[in-house]
C-alpha cells in the first residue's frame, strides 16, 4: 500500500511535469514564431538613379519639422573632380543599425528601438542631451535638435508619415525612384526583390553594427 501511494504520487508529478513543460515549450515555440514576423525596416539608396536634386532633404525637413540649418538627411556630392561629368551622390542619414551603438550607450534610454517596428528612434522627453549617442555613432549622423534640445536621427518618419500609413517623406518625394523603403523580413516586399537582383553594399560594415541601409553603387562605365 505504502509503495502504491508513492508510485501514484510519482506518476502524478510526472504527469503534471510533462503538461507544464509541454505547454511551456509550446509557448516558447509560438513566441519564436511571433518574433520572426517582427518587421525589419530597411532602405535602398540607388546611386545610379540619384541626380542630387535634394527634394528628399526638403521633404524630410518639412515633414519632420527639422529646424533651419539642421538635417536628418543630407545628399553629399561625391563626384570625382577628375571626371566632373560623372555625377555621384550619396545619402547621408541614420543607417538604422541592428546593433545600434546609440541605443547601447544612451544612459536614460531615450534613444531606443521602437517596440512595434524595430526602428531606432528617440523619446525627446527622456533625452538629457549628454551627446554620448552622437560621439558613439560610427556614422556621425546624429545631432541635437535646436528646438527640442534632444538628440535626433532619421527614424524613417516613424512618428509622422509611417504612422499615417505613408512611405517616408524622402521616398515619397523622390522623382527618380532612387529610394526604396520596405520590410527586409517580408520575402515578397519590393525591397527584397531588388536586393535579390542587384548588388548592394553597406557603408562601413567593418564596424559590425549591421546597418539596415543598402546602397547600390554606380557601376563603372568602360574600362
Amino acid at each position: 500500500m505504502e509503495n502504491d501511494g508513492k508510485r501514484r504520487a510519482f506518476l502524478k508529478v510526472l504527469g503534471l511535469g510533462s503538461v507544464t513543460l509541454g505547454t511551456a515549450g509550446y509557448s516558447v515555440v509560438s513566441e519564436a514564431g511571433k518574433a520572426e514576423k517582427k518587421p525589419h525596416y530597411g532602405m535602398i539608396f540607388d546611386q545610379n538613379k540619384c541626380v542630387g536634386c535634394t527634394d528628399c532633404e526638403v521633404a524630410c525637413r518639412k515633414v519632420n519639422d527639422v529646424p533651419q540649418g539642421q538635417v536628418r538627411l543630407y545628399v553629399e556630392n561625391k563626384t570625382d573632380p577628375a571626371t566632373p561629368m560623372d555625377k555621384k551622390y550619396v545619402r547621408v542619414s541614420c543607417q538604422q543599425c541592428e546593433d545600434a551603438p546609440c541605443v547601447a550607450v544612451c544612459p536614460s534610454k531615450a534613444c531606443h528601438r521602437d517596440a512595434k517596428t524595430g526602428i531606432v528612434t528617440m523619446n525627446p522627453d527622456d533625452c538629457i542631451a549628454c551627446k554620448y549617442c552622437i560621439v558613439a555613432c560610427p556614422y556621425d549622423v546624429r545631432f541635437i535638435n535646436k528646438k527640442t534640445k534632444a538628440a535626433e536621427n532619421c527614424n524613417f518618419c516613424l512618428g509622422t508619415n509611417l504612422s499615417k500609413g505613408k512611405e517616408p517623406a524622402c521616398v515619397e518625394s523622390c522623382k527618380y525612384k532612387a529610394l526604396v523603403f520596405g520590410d527586409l523580413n517580408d520575402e515578397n516586399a519590393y525591397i527584397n526583390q531588388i536586393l535579390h537582383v542587384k548588388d548592394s553594399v553597406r557603408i562601413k560594415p567593418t564596424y559590425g553594427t549591421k546597418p539596415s541601409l543598402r546602397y547600390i553603387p554606380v557601376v563603372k562605365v568602360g574600362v
Partner: protein
Amino acid sequence: MNGAMNFTYGFSHGVEWGWPIAVYLLLAGISGGALIVALLVRFYKKQQVDTPLLKAASLVSFATIALGMVFLVGDLEKPLYFWKILIHYNFASVMSIGVMAISIYIPLTLVMCLYLFEKEISIVLAKKSKRVGYFEMVMRILTRFRPLVEVLSVIFAVIICAYTGFLISVLVRFPILNTAILPALFVVSGLSAGTASAGMVASWLFKEEIHSSDLKTLHTIEWPIMAVEIMLIGMLFVSLLVGNEFQQITTVAFKSGLYATLFWVGVMGVGFGLPLVLNFALGKQIAHSQMAFYLCGMASVLGVLCLRMFIIYAGQTFGI
C-alpha cells in the same frame, strides 16, 4: 568601386565633448588617485592614527568629485533633466554604470571625510548640544564600519578612474580614444595628479612637514608612476603609428598643430619635464625647497589636465 560608396559629411560639429568633460576627467582622476594613494600608504604602513595625508586626501577626493559633478551636469544641454539617468538605468551604457559607481563613491568619500574631521565637526556643532548628540550617535555607528569603508573606497576609487577611460574608449569612431590602453592611462595619470594634490593639500592646509615620512613616500612613488604614464603614452602612440590607415592619420596630432603644442609643451614639458628638472637638474637646495615642492605638484596636475584636454580634443578631431 572602393572608397566610392562612403560619405564624409557628418551631422556633429567637430568636438562635441569639450573642455568641461576634460576638466571633469581630471577632477575624477584626482579624486580617485588621491584616495587610492593615501589609503594604500595607510594600509602599507599599518597606520592607526589619522595622518595629515589621509585628511588631505579625503578632503581632496570629496571636493574634487563634487566639483566634477558640476562640470559633468553643466555640460548637458538639458542639465535640469540629469535625474532621468537615475531612473532609467541602461546597464549597457558605460555612462549609466559610471553614474551608479559615482553614487556609491561620493557617499564613501563623504564618510571618509566624516571619519577624519570628526573632531572639527564636533567643535563646530558644539554650540548646539542637541546636534552634537546626534552627530556622535551617527559616528559611533559609522566607526564600526571604518575598515570596510576604507577598502570599499579604494576599490571604488579605482573604478571611478577606470570608468572615465572606458567612457570614451567605447567610441569606435575615434582611433585615439578607441584603444585598450586608455582606461589604464587614466588610472595612472589619476594617481599622478592625485598624489600631487593630496601632498600639496597635506602640507598647505594640515601643516605636514614636506620632508615628513608620508610625503617622502609620496615623493618616492611619484617617479615610478610618472615612468608608467610615459610608457603608456608611448604605447598609445606606437599602436596608432603601426595601425591601419585611419590610426596612422591620427599621429599628426602628436606631430604638428595646436594639439601637438599642447602635448609637447603641456603634457611632456610641464607635466613631466618641469618636475624632473626641479628635482634632479638644479641641485639639492632647490630640489628640497618649499617652492619646488608646490611647483612640482602644480606642474603634475597641470600636465594631467593637458593630457585629458589633448585626449578629448585630438581624439574627437581625428575621426574615421
